[in-house]
């Protein structure tokens, strides 16, 4: 079985049982790996009544067929579970070296069930697997936890996924930090780990010989593609400036970097960009396994209020959520805030957006200092954000309701429509008024307002995939059909677990698949069908969880026109939904795909 190890490790934290389950080759071909394979496994294990923070909600971490091979950026991994933020499908994809280590240890994934009585961590050292006591780590931040685990296991190069205080306290948007501050940020996977009293997972693998069908061909293809992509502008931008390199373009050219909690159009973000970072606090770069880009930033602030030793630099999303969204353009302040979020284990997007909502409501007079335990947030300052973060991570005072997310917080204050979220997941820093595709993408994403299941900002800026019919004409028109195609493509890349920053075309992905797995007849058409199959499966999963099409909408806060680069555009989500449902051939009222197509896609066993 090329590209796979053929087995998934299974750890039950309630019974402490450790076993393995076989990965069927046919299932692998149908669902690939990552989110596709995870959805096919988890579908039968959870239902509408499963408490996402209860012992019956499994956590499944999978890598993909490219993982551990020479395919550039193909060694990411996915954490999947029912989401405590949305009560729907949850996944979060992360980089680092964790995925490759898991593959080298001999596994395509780890299925974690039940929950431990006491804090614990899982140690996978090749085939030696243990559940170890983690009481000494409970309450410690993600940096201390990482350092301690490397020290006590003696595995200095192991992949380490760990939670901070937020995960322990079941903050619904707690993230999982992985290796050098890559993160499974979205949909609350840190809270799922916390609910299992699982502080960390340490994985060390030594068998680097991942079997592939055509090693020489794969090597050659990877080399030539790396060479040709070295001229690609996005490749270069991420390499030179990190994803914060996009800040200037997003704010100045497209108006898609939201500011002042989605109400300000002319905020100067010059000081927050990747270029400024390079000129000021940047001291190095970091890269995931087999990544020629190295988008990770390493910074140091030598003196002043926000002084910090070498640490991960802020990336685009937190520059938005803890910078422009609260009208702060102090890069050092944002960097320091981002570091606190990583130490506490809080998702940059949901955590930052929830705090920014508090700033906005305070400014609008909808809440007072009394509602915020005496904190008085003002646009442009970061001290209040830092104070609120600490409260959220501990669920202390106002932090308890804010830990539930921006929707719960807004509901408490009678202004649900002001929470920038869909299905309970906060919007990332890509304003749908800047790109119409983001609007329909958010409304129909399997995991709430999400930019990773349809990165239409890339497409509407010009990224194309001609073989799949993905080419934007105008960022202010109804491109719902293109969005659906991009969603399908992302279902494939999120199952292959190759990084979105590596701009491979569909034909190139197909070549990689053929040479890795030996599926010689795999074609672009099959890739498109794989994407449709996985997207459809995610919808079936969500329907089983109680998905409601009434929630396929955007909140009012992002539906007021703004001047500037968005040119007053407001997306007509309803019209786009018509197009989207028509293209997919699904029932718009129920959200259900037709049985005939479900059968054709081989998904009949996933109908309730």
């Amino acid at each position, binding site marked *: 079985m090329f590209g796979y190890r053929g087995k998934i490790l299974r750890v039950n934290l309630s019974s402490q049982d450790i076993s393995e389950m076989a990965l069927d080759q046919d299932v692998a071909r149908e669902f690939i790996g990552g989110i596709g394979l995870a959805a096919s496994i988890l579908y039968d294990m959870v239902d509408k009544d499963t408490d996402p923070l209860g012992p019956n909600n499994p956590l499944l971490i999978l890598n993909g067929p490219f993982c551990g091979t020479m395919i550039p950026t193909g060694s990411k991994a996915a954490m999947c579970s029912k989401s405590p933020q949305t009560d729907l499908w949850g996944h979060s994809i992360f980089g680092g070296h964790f995925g490759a280590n898991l593959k080298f240890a001999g596994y395509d994934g780890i299925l974690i069930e039940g929950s431990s009585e006491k804090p614990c961590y899982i140690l996978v050292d090749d085939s030696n697997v243990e559940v170890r006591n983690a009481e000494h780590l409970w309450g410690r931040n993600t940096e201390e936890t990482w350092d301690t685990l490397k020290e006590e296991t003696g595995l200095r190069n192991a992949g380490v996924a760990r939670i901070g205080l937020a995960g322990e306290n079941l903050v619904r948007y707690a993230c999982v930090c992985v290796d050098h501050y890559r993160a499974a940020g979205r949909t609350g996977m840190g809270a799922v780990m916390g609910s299992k009293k699982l502080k960390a997972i340490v994985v060390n693998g030594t068998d680097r010989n991942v079997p592939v069908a055509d090693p020489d061909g794969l090597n050659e293809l990877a080399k030539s593609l790396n060479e040709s992509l070295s001229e690609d*502008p996005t490749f270069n931008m991420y390499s*030179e*400036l990190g994803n914060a390199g996009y800040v200037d373009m997003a704010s100045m050219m497209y108006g898609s970097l939201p500011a002042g909690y989605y109400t300000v159009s002319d905020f100067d973000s010059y000081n927050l*960009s*990747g270029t400024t970072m390079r000129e000021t606090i940047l001291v190095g770069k970091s890269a995931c396994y087999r990544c020629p880009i190295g988008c990770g930033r390493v910074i140091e602030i030598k003196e002043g209020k926000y002084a910090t030793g070498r640490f991960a630099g802020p990336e685009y999303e937190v520059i938005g959520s803890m910078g422009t969204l609260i009208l702060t353009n102090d890069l050092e302040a944002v960097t320091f805030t981002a570091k606190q979020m990583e130490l506490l284990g809080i998702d940059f997007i949901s955590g930052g957006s929830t705090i920014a909502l508090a700033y906005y409501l305070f400014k609008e007079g909808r809440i007072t200092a009394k509602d915020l335990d005496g904190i008085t947030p003002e646009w442009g300052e970061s001290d209040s954000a830092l104070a609120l973060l600490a409260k959220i991570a501990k669920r202390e005072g106002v932090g308890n309701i804010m830990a539930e997310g921006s929707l719960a917080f807004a509901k408490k204050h009678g202004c649900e429509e002001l929470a920038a979220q869909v299905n309970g997941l906060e919007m990332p820093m890509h304003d749908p008024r800047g790109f119409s595709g983001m609007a329909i993408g958010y409304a129909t994403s399997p995991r709430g307002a999400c930019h990773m299941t349809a990165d239409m900002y890339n497409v509407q800026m*010009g990224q194309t995939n001609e073989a799949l019919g993905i080419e934007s004409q105008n960022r202010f028109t109804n491109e719902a059909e293109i969005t659906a195609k991009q969603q399908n493509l992302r279902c494939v890349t999120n199952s292959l677990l190759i990084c979105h920053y590596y701009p491979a075309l569909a034909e190139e992905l197909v070549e990689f698949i053929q040479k890795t797995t030996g599926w010689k007849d795999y074609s672009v058409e099959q890739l498109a069908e794989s994407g449709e199959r996985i997207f459809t499966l995610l919808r079936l999963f969500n329907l089983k969880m109680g998905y409601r099409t009434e929630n396929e909408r955007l909140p009012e806060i992002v539906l007021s026109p703004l001047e500037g680069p968005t040119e007053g555009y407001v997306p007509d989500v309803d019209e786009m939904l018509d197009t989207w449902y028509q293209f997919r051939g699904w029932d718009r009222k129920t959200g259900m795909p037709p049985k005939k197509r479900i059968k054709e896609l081989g998904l009949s066993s996933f109908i309730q």
Partner: protein
Amino acid sequence: MGDNKFIFPSEEWIEKYEEVLNASKEYEDAAYDWEGDFVFEIEPDGEIIKESIRFYLDLWHGKCRSARMAGANDTAEFTYAGPYKNWKLLFDKKIDPIKGLMQRKFKLGKGNDMGKIMRYTKAAMELVNATTKVPTKFLDE
């Protein structure tokens, strides 16, 4: 020059372009602190363009200090290159300078500073906007 239009590319076109650019308030504002020169290169396509054609722009603090046809050995801080048909798309505003790069219709010279370009996306747009104000006749028209 025919029909009061300037043939692109030609010395006359570039001369007119320099004049238009220096009259552009929008460009001046967007590029008020820009310092750097450009070589724009029209790559050979085997049909309309047999050998690469290059022109040089010295851009400084919102103004164009000089513009001229350039030889193969002329260098600049930045090179922006693409085939003739894509230059036409750019001038017709069917694509913008950044979209052109994203779509791989244009490329920047090896080692050119992406960060600096990102900083001045507005200025880049105005550079293109100025081309639309030059009455242009293309070689294949």
